[in-house]
């Protein structure tokens, strides 16, 4: 049921604006992730919603009711954070039933709830184990169960998987999503890991310096980011400086130096405008380049990560770009210094106005 709405929420710490005029609506049963570099204000945002801190300005609504004067324990919120905070001297059962127990709920009411929770996180068999006897992943699942048992409808997750090994983290993230969807909860998940956010969220919010840069579905953020910052922060991208030399109703041609031109689907840019041209390494076609948007250059380096290869190519304008491909063994390999030609479909070439603060600053993670 819960819809969460933030209207103009700001929070300052001294001179730093941790949240600066945040407007955001999280729909009922939506799984929303917030990503951004450290210090961007994502944890402040989630703490504002939880009621752990109070905004200096603005208002927060849960189900259209302002919660400014509603204390944390009455917001029907489950809150899970990075440092697994189970009671070390209590077993799993006692940890999970702690909330209902201190609220004075009778045993016969607590028991079925706890059983349901244990069943859901698939650790019913370990209910008598103590936290230190369990793996980090299982401990964190217990923390989620404990957060949910008190009838929470809104789950707030602050780097819930941050303390775990990559491998466990990857498996657990899908379980988290399944749990939220099965229980028909609304979830807000803060993470520094874009891949985590992209793979489990209905919508992703990108933050920078206390503000929301943009929000969108994972696919839209990836294929049509509205800002260069997002293009760089979410996934990999090549950035090239250029000048618009020609426009038609639906295409623009950008000169990126040394006579090399790229055609893109047209946005708002006009002839002679300084722009940044962006495309993803995986959209660069290495094997059978199409006729339009060919770029030729020299292979500078070939990098492997598992079965994916990145070919680093130096263009005639001295800029180096990356092209990505699966390292299929029946396709040709590339040698350093070899000349190659790639192509990028105009659909996959994005054009942005040249940022006032310069490209480096616009992309900076800190």
């Amino acid at each position, binding site marked *: 049921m819960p819809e969460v709405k933030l209207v103009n929420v700001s929070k300052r710490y001294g001179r730093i604006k941790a949240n600066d005029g945040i407007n955001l609506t999280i729909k009922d049963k939506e799984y929303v992730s917030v990503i951004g570099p450290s210090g961007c204000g994502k944890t402040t945002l989630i703490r504002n919603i939880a009621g752990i801190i109070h905004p200096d300005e603005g208002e927060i609504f849960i189900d259209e009711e302002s919660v400014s004067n509603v204390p944390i324990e009455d917001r029907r919120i489950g809150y899970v954070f990075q440092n697994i905070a189970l009671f070390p001297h209590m077993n799993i059962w006692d940890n999970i039933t702690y909330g209902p127990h201190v609220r004075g709920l009778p045993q016969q009411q607590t028991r079925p709830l706890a059983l349901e929770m244990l069943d859901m996180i698939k650790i019913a068999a370990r209910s008598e184990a103590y936290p230190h006897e369990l793996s980090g*992943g299982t401990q964190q699942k217990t923390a989620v169960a404990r957060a949910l048992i008190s009838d929470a409808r809104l789950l707030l997750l602050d780097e819930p998987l941050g303390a775990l090994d990559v491998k466990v983290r990857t*498996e657990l993230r899908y379980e988290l999503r399944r749990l939220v969807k099965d229980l028909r909860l609304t979830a807000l998940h803060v993470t520094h890991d874009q891949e985590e956010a992209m793979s489990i969220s209905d919508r992703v919010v990108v933050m920078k310096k206390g503000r929301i840069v943009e929000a969108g579905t994972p*696919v839209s953020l990836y294929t049509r980011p509205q800002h260069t910052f997002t293009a760089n922060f979410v996934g990999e991208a090549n950035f090239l400086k250029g000048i618009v030399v020609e426009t038609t109703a639906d295409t623009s041609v950008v000169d990126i130096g040394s006579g090399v031109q790229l055609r893109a689907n047209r946005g708002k840019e006009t002839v002679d405008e300084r722009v940044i041209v962006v495309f993803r390494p*995986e959209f660069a076609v290495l094997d059978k380049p199409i006729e339009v948007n060919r770029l030729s250059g020299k292979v500078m380096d070939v990098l492997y990560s598992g079965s994916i290869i990145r070919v680093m190519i130096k263009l005639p304008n001295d800029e180096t770009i990356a092209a990505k491909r*699966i390292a299929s063994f029946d396709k040709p390999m590339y040698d350093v210094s070899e000349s190659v030609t790639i192509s990028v479909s105009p659909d996959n070439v994005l054009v942005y106005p040249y940022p006032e603060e310069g490209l480096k600053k616009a992309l900076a993670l*800190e």
Partner: protein
Amino acid sequence: MPLVKLVNITKKFGEIIALDNIELSIEDGEYLCVLGQTGAGKTTLLRTIAGLIRPDGGEIFIEGELVNDVPPEERDAVYMFQHFALFPHMNVWDNVSFGPSIKNWDNEQVKTISSEVLEMVRLSDRQDAFPSELSGGMQQRVALARGIASGAKILLLDEPLGALDARLRVDLRRQLRRLVKDQKLTAVHVTHDQEEALMTADRIMVLRKGKVEQVGLPSEIYSSPKSIFVASFVGNANFFEGNVIEMDNSGSTIWIRGDYQIRVSQTDRKVGDKVVVAVKPTDVIINPDSHKGKNVFSGMVDSSTFVGGSMKYKVIVGDGMVIFSEALVSNIQELPRPGQEVTVSFHPARCCLFEYPEAGLLKEIEAI
């Protein structure tokens, strides 16, 4: 002569064997990653090389010299803690130049190396700041800079990028490798992140429960895993249980429950053996150009997950054989959707064949 050599190193903590007969040679100038889960013994290994832990058995050689009795400060190795330990009362510059200064390097040299490493970790503009004024990630980078500036030849890096944001980690790991190479240092870098290891290492050592599971080039670890654990831990894998029913010069045929047959190039098992076939999701091609050849199956996309740059598919073949595929996204409009019929295929040479483990398959691959 290898720069660092471990012979038969064993270390116990109570009943737990943290290191179990470790043999390892690290060449001068090499970038070695030690990869494993929490509790695999990675940190113990690093601290043993540093001299912070004394092994119960075995010998450690650095530059040919037995160093079991040599204290840490006299080994040409610097250990960088997982939790950075900066001097809180010194600013960034003083923290970084501390090592070179106490070694009595001349001022110019101290200045050069300190500015160079600060530039590398992108903190040149924060050299006057105190640790308390920096974010956790920045502090980690100061610690990194300090370790590199210490002048030690061997860098022992314990999760050096662990406290950083995922995106920053990607940028920094490339720079870290480049710096080690430029400065002609030797690095032993401990991580639980397989992608980090694959992207930075010359060689990877996979540790599991105190034992060396496999040592090799990143491409070998990924494409030719020597065990089910490595196949699963590095880059994940599809696992199929079955029996060898046929074998000839070009490979073996495996019968899989549900009456499927998988062809593999390996011929090192016997007909009748119970086996496990492992195939990387990235080697499973969806809707290949040609439907000829071995290991081509028809199925239906059950679910797909966009992970930014690549797409993960769960495909169900026939009555329930599940195959996971991962493909780079090069055209977002033409992606198969859940419910759609597809063909999947994988080459016999991309299959790894293992003896069926005594403890069962799950025991070998469980992560949680």
